[in-house]
């Protein structure tokens, strides 16, 4: 089956994103496809390449990057929610003349239409809320 996950919690602030990650891994292990990961609300923070947890802690943003790369997953960060919370790619950095950008490789900034699209094209859309 095709699964899409809507992730609304920031890493470290709640378990939502961790639960979503473990679910994604388990779904893949059962032979399912992850159609899209959609990061919205505080979930956008999962896509930051500046997250620097202590070495003995779970580096969730890094694990997302790895999973997205090895499984070729479409990982979308809602652009409005991302900009508001300081998640920018190079394009938005230029557009708003900001000092940096921090969107992790493998993620794209896009609109809420991608969440709707995930709903219409997946067999299951599951929300992981904080």
């Amino acid at each position, binding site marked *: 089956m095709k699964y899409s996950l809507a992730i609304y919690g920031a890493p470290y602030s709640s*378990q939502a994103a961790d639960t979503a990650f473990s679910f994604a891994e388990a779904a893949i292990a*059962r032979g399912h496809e992850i159609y899209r990961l959609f990061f919205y609300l505080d979930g956008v923070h999962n896509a930051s390449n500046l997250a620097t947890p202590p070495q003995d802690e779970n580096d969730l943003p890094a694990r997302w990057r790895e999973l997205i790369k090895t499984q070729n997953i479409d990982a979308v960060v809602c652009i409005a929610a991302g900009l508001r919370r300081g998640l920018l790619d190079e394009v938005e950095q230029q557009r708003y003349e900001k000092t940096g950008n921090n969107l992790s490789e493998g993620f794209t900034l896009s609109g809420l239409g991608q969440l709707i699209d995930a709903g219409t094209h997946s067999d*299951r859309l599951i929300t992981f809320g904080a």
Partner: protein
Amino acid sequence: MILHTVNKSPLQNNSLDSCLRIAQPDCAILLIEDAVYAATDTANGLISEQVLSLHKVYALIPDLKARGLLERIKPGIELVNYDGFVTLTEQFDSVQSWY
């Protein structure tokens, strides 16, 4: 039929209470994250015998283990791993997430 997931502790947040008000018989309820405290055997917990007679109630093992609850589970609640979580989502048409 719906799989309901609840992730908040029942005494801290009304999510489980609302879920139980809405969940139809034959829907399943999966307790995850802080909601696994509701899976413990307490005298006046929300997961009553009546609830268990209407719904299959599951609790996520990694969350129970994290919180030191594995020896305190109310009889009648089934324990699952993430693999079981995925399996439940296969069996039900949609997932209603209460948080």
